[in-house]
């Protein structure tokens, strides 16, 4: 997830981290973390162990779409890739959406023999770990962060960015909607870099598809709890689509208040960064008619349904996996296949080589189907524009979305030449 909502963190989401105190302290903490995370495979004699650290938001605003579910999906992949000549161990930690906390844990993990760090929502934390993985020649398998810089100016030979990014979101929603009649837009934008980027990219695609942006209201982030003033402005613009260039609770509150102020009667609302987990917490009566782009939904096809059924017993509250959680599964599967292909000992010794092997092999997993990892570390797959079903259309729990449009894999992401990734030139 792109934004970090430190301002919305409860009072005490205070700094805490896992930088070690002494070597003994380090090992003790590692033991505790491993115990807490659940070592999923008993060590077998002599077989090398691949250690995966799921670093995610276990307590903050992104806990539900990432968090324990990301851990469960990573463990699912580890289970499915068992018996390939190495054992897999999954540990977890909470980065609390703080870059220095995340960076500390990552340094310590890599120093203690963690081979790959998985997930890492919140762009600021992801960017910090991107650098550490490169410095220590380990592997960073990102699913949760939105920043397209991870495969752009900050791209690294040690990183794979799997699930989505801001470019994909903007294109999937902006271009597809403008083409299908949603050609006049008004934005409500969180006034900081992420919000600006999302608004700018989406506007570009809307305009490229012949649409028009009628206006935008930038609201102070993270201090705004009442969006009615901006919603009234949006209403009086008479735009057909309201684009919400924000995330998390801001998006939910906007949607709730948009319904209250009757915007849904004559406007379509597009949450530019939403997952169906937010639909789940808003409830269908409030969320119906919303538009959002995701590369994964559990009910896409037989393979996604099979994957969802397999992983659900592990999921907190038996929830369906979200795109980020499914991404943790997909990227872990692919990494472990690459490890099996090149040999665990070599993969552990050289993170860069492991990622190079991932790029050389086509991907294929139940959640995302067939695809590939590009030279800049970007995983390529189609993205889908979904509309939230009306309560009457829903056939049961978790049946929330229907596909409105599909963006094919090769068009869904930023063209490799436009990203400015230094790896590509060399």
């Amino acid at each position, binding site marked *: 997830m792109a934004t970090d909502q430190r*301002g*919305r*963190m*409860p*009072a*005490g989401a205070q700094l805490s981290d896992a930088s070690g105190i002494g070597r003994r302290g380090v090992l003790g903490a590692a033991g505790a973390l491993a115990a807490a995370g659940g070592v999923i495979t008993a060590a077998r004699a002599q077989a090398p162990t691949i250690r995966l650290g799921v670093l995610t938001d276990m*307590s*903050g*605003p992104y*806990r*539900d779409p990432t968090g324990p579910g990301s851990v469960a999906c990573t463990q699912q992949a580890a289970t499915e890739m068992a018996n390939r000549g190495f054992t897999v161990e999954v540990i977890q930690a909470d980065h609390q959406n703080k870059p220095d906390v995340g960076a500390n844990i990552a340094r310590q993990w890599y120093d203690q023999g963690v081979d790959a760090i998985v997930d890492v929502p919140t762009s600021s934390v992801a960017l910090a770990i991107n650098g550490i993985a490169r410095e220590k020649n380990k592997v960073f398998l990102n699913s949760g962060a939105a920043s397209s810089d991870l495969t752009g100016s900050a791209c690294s030979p040690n990183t794979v960015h799997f699930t989505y990014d801001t470019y994909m979101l903007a294109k999937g929603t902006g271009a597809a909607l403008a083409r299908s009649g949603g050609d006049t837009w008004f934005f409500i934008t969180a*006034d900081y870099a992420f919000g600006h980027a999302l608004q700018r990219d989406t506007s570009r695609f809307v305009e490229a598809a012949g649409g028009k942006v009628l206006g935008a*209201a*930038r*609201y*102070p982030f*993270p*201090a*705004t*709890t*009442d969006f*009615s*003033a*901006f919603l*009234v*402005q949006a*209403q*009086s613009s008479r735009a057909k689509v309201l684009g919400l260039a924000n995330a*998390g*609770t801001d998006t*939910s*509150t906007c949607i*709730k*208040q948009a319904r*209250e*102020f*009757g915007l849904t009667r004559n406007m379509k609302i597009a949450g530019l960064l939403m997952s169906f*987990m*937010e639909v789940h*917490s*808003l*409830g269908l*009566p*409030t969320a119906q008619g919303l538009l959002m782009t995701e590369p994964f939904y559990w009910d896409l096809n037989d393979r996604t349904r099979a994957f969802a059924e397999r992983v659900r017993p592990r999921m907190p509250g038996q929830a369906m996996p979200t795109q980020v959680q499914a991404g943790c599964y997909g990227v872990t599967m692919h990494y472990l296949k690459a490890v099996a292909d090149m040999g665990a000992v070599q993969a552990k010794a050289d993170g860069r080589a492991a990622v190079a092997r991932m790029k050389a092999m086509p991907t294929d997993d139940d959640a995302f189907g067939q695809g590939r990892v590009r030279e800049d570390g970007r995983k390529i797959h189609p993205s889908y524009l979904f509309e939230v079903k009306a309560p009457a259309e829903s056939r049961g729990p978790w049946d929330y979305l229907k596909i409105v449009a599909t963006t094919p894999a090769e068009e869904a992401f930023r063209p490799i030449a436009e990203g400015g990734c230094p790896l590509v030139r060399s």
Partner: protein
Amino acid sequence: MEDLFGIPAPLLFGQLLLGLINGAFYAMLSLGLAVIFGLLNIVNMAHGALFMMGAFVAWLLLDKLGLGYWWALLLSPFIVGAFGVVLEKLFISRLYKLDHLYGLLLTFGLALVIEGVFRNEFGSSGLPYRIPPELAGSWDLDFMFLPIYRAWVVVFALVACLATWLVIEKTRLGAYLRAATENAPLVQAFGVNVPRMVTLTYGAGVALAALGGVLAAPIYSVNPQMGSNLIIVVFAVVVIGGMGSILGAVLTGFGLGIVEGMTKVFYPEASATVIFVIMVIVLLARPAGLFGRA
């Protein structure tokens, strides 16, 4: 359509009204803070957390007991108020002889505990709470759609503030309260149980916060950090108004809500900071606050 300051007049009126609605929350919270401060001389840093609790209790009543909005409006302030009474008895009452800053630190700690517990229990992503069917829908006021529930919030908050003011200014209980604020030992000497009055005052101030929480539940997101977002702004409101006067707290709350609403029209980027800027100006011109006694 006429323009005022380059903005269509209807839009401006609409925003004025919306500002008033947000002002209602500022007013209720700063009123509670002022009542508590008046008698206890502490800044209740836990006020935001208790506001949040009010909303959560409403949600819990619905989810666990099936009691809807109207019950919550009645019960939640009592439940949270009772919780406040326990807090006062157990913790806050031990600090009256000490520097006021200790009260601030203690209630800050309590706020951390309360928010942390709710975050562990309910996560951070927010819980759904619907507008009661009786207040759903909206009025078409020509210049804007006014959701009926928002109108209800303003009216209800005004009534609650007015009732509090009446109790303090016009009743015997209020007279004791004001007297105890001035000189507690003397009032005690007249046979009034001042410690109990202090406890109940804290409970009442907390109940006002909880009432605000219930009012907010259907329109804001019910999440553990909903109070901490609001409370720093409310502190600025209190500094601007000065904590000396009940009416001052209410007027400042509504007034600043309107100012903030106007900022959202003319320069939305500044709407978060405008109240703090006003605070600085007031401090430079009138350090005791608009309604404060120096």
